[in-house]
């Protein structure tokens, strides 16, 4: 087994991780904001429901959630999940939306009340105040915890192998099964490079937002 062959196979696996990572981010980031809005609303049933959701998701293993999303629709409603990738994506989006929502909530609740009131006395609507005044300040505040969570997501995508997604670690394990151990260690390089790129991206955004304080 040549180095090239191993690399090719691992790269194919890693593309699955990348796909899962990107789609999860794209969907969980807005969904998390929605859940955060739910946990902060004055309307009690919605607030209760949102907080319940966050509690359940954060209190159970992602691995278990993957199994539940894959098998529950078939067992409960007789409509099995058509693709394993869809199941994995669904589980990841739900899981990460819960974590993101708490980061958003912390960021939003940390903005001084005076910022809202300044917007109110200028005759702005709640939506205008949120999007034009509050949101940018929230982004700046939540960037450090967000970057933590996003890096965790990169590595968590490997969990998808428990429902037989041929991602990077699974590809390496196949070689290990045939007695070839080094590809297993080699996967670390993929993660290091990918997370390294993300770290650079986050510090770039942080610098971009450094033009103001507060």
């Amino acid at each position: 087994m040549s180095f090239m062959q191993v690399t090719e196979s691992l790269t194919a696996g890693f593309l699955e991780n990348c796909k899962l990572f990107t789609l999860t981010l794209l969907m969980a980031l807005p969904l998390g904001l929605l859940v955060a809005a739910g946990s902060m609303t004055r309307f009690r049933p919605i607030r209760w429901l949102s907080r319940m959701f966050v509690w359940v998701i954060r209190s159970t293993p992602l691995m278990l959630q993957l199994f539940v999303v894959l098998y529950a629709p078939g067992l409960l409603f007789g409509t099995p999940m058509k693709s394993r990738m869809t199941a994995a994506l669904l589980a990841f989006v739900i899981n990460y939306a819960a974590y993101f929502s708490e980061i958003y909530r912390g960021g939003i609740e940390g903005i001084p009340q005076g910022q809202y009131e300044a917007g109110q006395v200028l005759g702005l609507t709640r939506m205008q105040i949120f999007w034009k005044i509050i949101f940018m300040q929230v982004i700046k505040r939540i960037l450090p915890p967000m970057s933590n969570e996003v890096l965790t997501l990169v590595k968590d995508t490997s969990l998808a192998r428990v429902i037989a997604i041929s991602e990077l670690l699974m590809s390496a394990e196949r070689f290990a099964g045939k007695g070839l151990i080094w590809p297993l260690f080699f996967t670390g390089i993929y993660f290091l490079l990918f997370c390294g790129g993300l770290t650079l991206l986050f510090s770039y955004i942080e610098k971009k937002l450094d033009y103001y304080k507060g």
Partner: protein
Amino acid sequence: MSILEVKNINKTFGKTEVLKGIDFTIQKGEVLVILGSSGSGKTTLLRSLNFLETPEQGQIYLNDSLLADFADSAKMSDEQIREKRLHFGLVFQSFHLFPQYSVLENLTLAMKIHRDAKRKNKDILAQIDAEAMMLLDRVGLAEKRDAYPFQLSGGQQQRVAIARALALKPDILCFDEPTSALDPELTGEVLKVIRELKDSETTMIIVTHEMHFARHVADKILFMADGVVEEEGTAEQIFESPQSEKLKNFLSKIYD
């Protein structure tokens, strides 16, 4: 004809009655100063006028027509409240400038939204910028147009906040202890701006602890204590011949 008439404002927080039937009027171009020890309800009154608090009772008349009857406040839609609010401007004790926007953008943000100026409307945008620059010039900060709030001193930030409140051309400009968060050497520049506004006939309601300033700028003073207007009069009446015990007490504490 009075520009503003406030009748029987009542506000409670939980079981505490903060405002117990406040009445007053102001004429156009007048400066009303509200004095009183902390907890007397001054700030709550100002916030009620700006619809940041909703009193249980009371009416506000603007130019002799009813602007708000708080007994019916449940019937006011958010949109109606926003519209009514625009008759008033409010300058906060701790400025509350928007940190991510430049000085100029702090002024123009709401102007652009209200006039629905999109990026392509170059003429309207230029017009708004020009108006905002005139206001910055008026508060002496034209050269700071591109600075961000954190780069300004407290006094400069408060002057920007005043310009921002003026940008929407309110009928009545309210100040909630505009110098209380400032170092003593910075209060002068803010008070000077307010004095200049008085000279240009801006109608203002000012809550302040600066007695010397109050005396010189006020056309009328309300002294509040325990949620009621304890005494009302010209600066001379209030400072030279106070009638109520509470006012005498208040003044003696300050001048001791």
